[in-house]
């Protein structure tokens, strides 16, 4: 595509409405100065009160640097090779436009809106899609299903050897308890299949938890129904709390195994409290202490804006 021949003879034709203009960059900060310098030479430096104070001074200094030693387009002028105001499709009106061919406006914004619209639709159906796809191959590919994300709130996850660990139930109870792992095992582990929902929107379905139901442990300790329980993690930071009534809900458990394998460090070894009817944050990984008390004391994420009652689909925003 050789422009030379096209342009040589037609130079008088192109840019008929163009007047020699000051070649300056019109930044917002410089609007006033440019009015003053409107008649300055075409070499582009213009007059500036460039050393004026603060941001304006900085802006004009930067704009001057832009203009130094370079050709600068006049952005107030419409492009001659791709004019703006000529309708959806425009044939060439000048030699330069001949290189542009047919110009179609509005393409960019249509593609943009198309992508955003598609994403919005997927957002609206994505929840159902994830649930349905979870059992399928698609569920393995989609990032929001089928796998746990690991959240922790301290620098490092706390490590404790199984033989050094015990779970105490203390506070306002008849019989304070201390269970080693062997003690819990002697009670007889139960396995339960539950869904795990994180409040942020990811879920893991059909998770098998193995451990001791929370209600059984509270019975052994002897608690009054009007009390509250608080779970403490031996990470030293994380706590959560429930009423005794909530703690007794079916499915709640001190779990020692996930999908038939002992908990990994990431998953809260050696034991974690799980509350399946509520979002994951209501549980407590690396648990070693259950305190029964009169007051209901807000736990880690509740202090940071999440609901005390974390029932799935009925809290933290209206229902599912």
């Amino acid at each position, binding site marked *: 595509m050789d422009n030379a021949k096209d342009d040589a003879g037609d130079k008088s034709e192109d840019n008929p409405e163009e007047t020699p203009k000051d070649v300056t960059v019109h930044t917002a900060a410089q609007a006033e100065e440019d009015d003053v310098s409107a008649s300055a030479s075409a070499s582009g430096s213009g007059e500036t009160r460039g050393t004026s104070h603060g941001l304006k001074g900085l802006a004009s200094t930067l704009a001057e640097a*832009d203009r130094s030693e*370079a050709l600068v387009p006049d952005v107030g002028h419409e492009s001659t090779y791709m004019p703006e105001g000529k309708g959806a499709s425009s044939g060439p009106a000048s030699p330069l436009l001949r290189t542009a061919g047919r*110009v179609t406006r509005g393409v960019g914004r249509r593609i943009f809106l198309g992508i955003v619209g598609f994403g*919005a639709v997927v957002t609206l159906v*994505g929840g159902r899609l994830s649930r349905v796809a979870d059992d399928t191959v698609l569920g393995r590919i989609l990032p*929001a299903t089928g796998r746990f994300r690991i959240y922790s709130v301290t620098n490092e996850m706390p490590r404790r050897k199984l033989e050094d660990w015990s779970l105490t139930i203390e506070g306002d109870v008849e019989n304070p308890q201390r269970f080693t792992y062997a003690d819990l095992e002697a009670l007889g582990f139960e396995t339960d299949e539950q869904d795990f929902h994180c409040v*942020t*929107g990811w879920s893991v379905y059909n998770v098998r938890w193995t451990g001791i139901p929370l209600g059984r442990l509270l019975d052994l300790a002897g608690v009054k129904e009007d009390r509250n329980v608080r779970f403490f993690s031996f990470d030293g930071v994380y706590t959560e709390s429930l009423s005794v009534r909530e703690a007794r809900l079916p499915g709640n458990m001190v779990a020692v195994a996930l999908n038939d394998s002992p908990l990994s460090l990431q998953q809260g070894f050696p034991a974690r409290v799980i509350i399946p009817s509520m979002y994951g944050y209501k549980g407590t990984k690396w648990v070693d202490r259950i305190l029964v008390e009169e007051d209901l004391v807000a736990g880690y994420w509740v202090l940071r804006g999440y609901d005390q009652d974390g029932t799935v689909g009925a809290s933290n925003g209206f229902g599912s």
Partner: protein
Amino acid sequence: MALAPEVTRGDSALSTRILRFDWGERVFHWSHALAFFLLAGTGAVMFFPSLSTAVGNRNIVRTAHEFGGFAVPILAMVALALSPFLRRDLAEIDRLDQADREWWSGGWLEDLFPSRQEISGLPSPRVPSSGKFNAGQKMNAICSAAAMTLLFGTGLVMYFHTRFPLWLKQGAILVHDIVAIAVVLLVGGHVLLALRDRESLRGMITGKVSRKWGALHHKAWVAEFSAREDTQNAVPGQAVTEDARESR
């Protein structure tokens, strides 16, 4: 008075530089790049168990991520207000012309692998006469902007978690994660191409590119300069000479 031959003939005609990105655009680009690395880094930490295990401190990581997320649209709005170049560039990105069509149907190969061009110094006739942005660059801008919009929108759903139902949060996290992965790939490609074409990278750092580079990759854009420059400098009856151009 021919135009394009000025651009192709010898090095002395090609020593002038052209302002491609004004300071507003450059500040926007680089501050946005910083925000991107913050978001991608914190996002990766939250997404990959090995990273979240190593880093912990979810509350801090998430807060930093949210900060980056809000910074992006704020930076965009400030840039749009401050940079007339940006506004005009957006208008060009909106338009599709013949060069774009050619670029998509094979012209990109010549444009991105111009080894033949660079050796000879002559623009290959098969490289489309792109304007300021070639079709690939336009597409990158459009897709990046759309991705950022989706990320911000779904991010808002996650941020205002007490106001939205579970099913919407589930959809939001799905889209957020998929688009995040896609945009990391997109930006990765963008960075790779920028590193391959040093003059192009220089354009985003200093704002200016050489006319020679422009003649190779954005012929129509450079031709526009030549036209306007000649018109402005022309004294009736006097030819525009090499020297006159050089002395500007």
